[in-house]
């Protein structure tokens, strides 16, 4: 087994051996469920749109919460030293951590499938946007989690890591919301940087390569920065 997978296996076990996974997953499904059914009954429309429109904001809280300890705790308690002196490359450590948080995200998303099932019971479910929406959620969640892993690699303090990650995620989310107030010259850039804009496309059922490239770039760049930050101990 690749060391990255060994590390993610260990992290997943840690998530589910401690209350972290259960608390986070429960809280998020409850909050999601509340807003989702609220909208469902008000609008009396059996679709997933309200769920998907909530997700970008919810993930701003979810991702930092599940990623804050990944590297910061190892740095704080010194276990990183033992981990990194095993025959493992730095990027494998980072990737393993990211994969573990992704597994938790997938668990949460799997539980939200009950919304899709509910909608399908109430009326015909528009499958295209639903499937695309979930793909979009995975991409967006992956980006936020990558940002969280990166923030966690910057510090040995979990609270600091949480705040950095939340700041970045929330800024990227906000870019999409403040668009009307931005001067026209900067609009394309701000709109491009916003996770929200890209997610709107995806949740409408359109999987555009530009959006996929955007999310993948955020993931790759964040994980590379996390690796660099881990490697910085070796700077001469």
């Amino acid at each position, binding site marked *: 087994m690749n060391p990255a997978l060994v590390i993610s296996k260990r992290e997943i076990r840690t998530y589910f051996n401690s209350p972290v996974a259960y608390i986070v997953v429960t809280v998020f499904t409850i909050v999601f469920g509340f807003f989702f059914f609220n909208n469902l009954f008000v609008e009396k429309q059996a679709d997933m749109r309200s769920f998907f429109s909530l997700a970008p904001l919810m993930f701003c809280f979810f991702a930092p919460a599940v990623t804050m300890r990944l590297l910061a705790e190892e740095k704080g308690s010194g276990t990183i030293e033992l981990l990194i002196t095993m025959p*493992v490359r730095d990027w494998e450590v980072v990737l393993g951590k990211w994969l573990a948080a992704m597994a938790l995200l997938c668990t949460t998303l799997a539980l939200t499938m009950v919304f899709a099932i509910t909608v399908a019971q109430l009326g015909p479910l528009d499958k295209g946007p639903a499937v695309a929406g979930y793909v979009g959620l995975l991409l967006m969640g992956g980006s936020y989690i990558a940002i969280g892993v990166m923030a966690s690699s910057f510090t040995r303090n979990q609270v600091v890591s949480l705040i950095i990650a939340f700041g970045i995620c929330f800024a990227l989310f906000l870019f999409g919301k403040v668009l009307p107030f931005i001067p026209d010259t900067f609009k394309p850039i701000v709109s491009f940087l916003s996770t929200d804009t890209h997610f709107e496309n995806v949740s409408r059922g359109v999987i555009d390569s530009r959006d996929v490239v955007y999310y993948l770039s955020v993931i790759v760049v964040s994980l590379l920065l996390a690796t660099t930050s881990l490697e910085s101990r070796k700077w001469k």
Partner: protein
Amino acid sequence: MSDLMIRVESLTKDYGPFRAVDKVTFNVRKGEVLGFLGPNGAGKSTTMKMLTCYLAPTSGRATVAGHDVYEDSLAVRKRLGYLPEDTPLYRDMTVLEYLQFAAEMRQMDPSKSPARIKEVGGRCGLTDVAGKLVGELSKGFRQRLGLAQAILHDPDILVLDEPTSGLDPNQIVEIRRLIKELGQEKTVILSTHILPEVQATCTRILIISGGKLVADDTPEALRAREKGSRYRLVVESNGVPKEAIREKLATISGVANCQTIATEAGALAFALDGGGTADLRRHIFRAAVDNHWPLLELVRESVSLEEVFRNLTTRDDDRPEEARP
């Protein structure tokens, strides 16, 4: 490849303007148990961190089993077992889970690792606590687990940073025995600031102070370096003033220094420093008989490693700190 397992050439590490390790050079041959000695903050751990590829040297180079620690660190790490200072282990895993994790990280053959884990666990005395959480273990067991994970993949080289710190005397004896055993087949570097430890386990001693290597020798040779010996004697005073006795003792040829160290109920204890290598016990006894002091005790103490250590490391502290930007 020769039997040189570790080769360190003018290894230097700067933390900002502070030079933690300053041009340290040494070699370690196969089968040696090398004791790395020095006061706290002398650069022992930093040197070990460079050897285990956790930190990169600022300048100089180190090769482990023929592989450079910076260029070829993965190959180095495969052949190393490392026990960091304070044994940082994941507290939320059980002992068995931790060893399984280590085995997987080391890419051990899954069909053979359970047997190996069992063997190593038995050797380190972990069998009874296999199901316990690491966070609930006592310091002694944690240390043993740290050692177990270091030797799990049967590495050629073991780097142990203060393997016996925080253990009770029984555990210390046990760990030392284990290290000695391991030293017969492996190359071991261990750091400590406890002197009896190196005497008990090491075949060679490096003393480092202020980042610099100040001695590199066998324990015997190091002791022989410091000339002279010390005598401790207790005599019954029978009313003779202690000053008179002290003066008489100081006149014995070969005695460089004489001090009163204790007085109690008519008995006086003195410490004599013999400058040369000659045995002065005969002369001291003669002096006692001639002066009619009943001799209660006479012991010759050879210079301990402690004194060698103190001399080498304090001499160094007087030197102005060489901090470079």
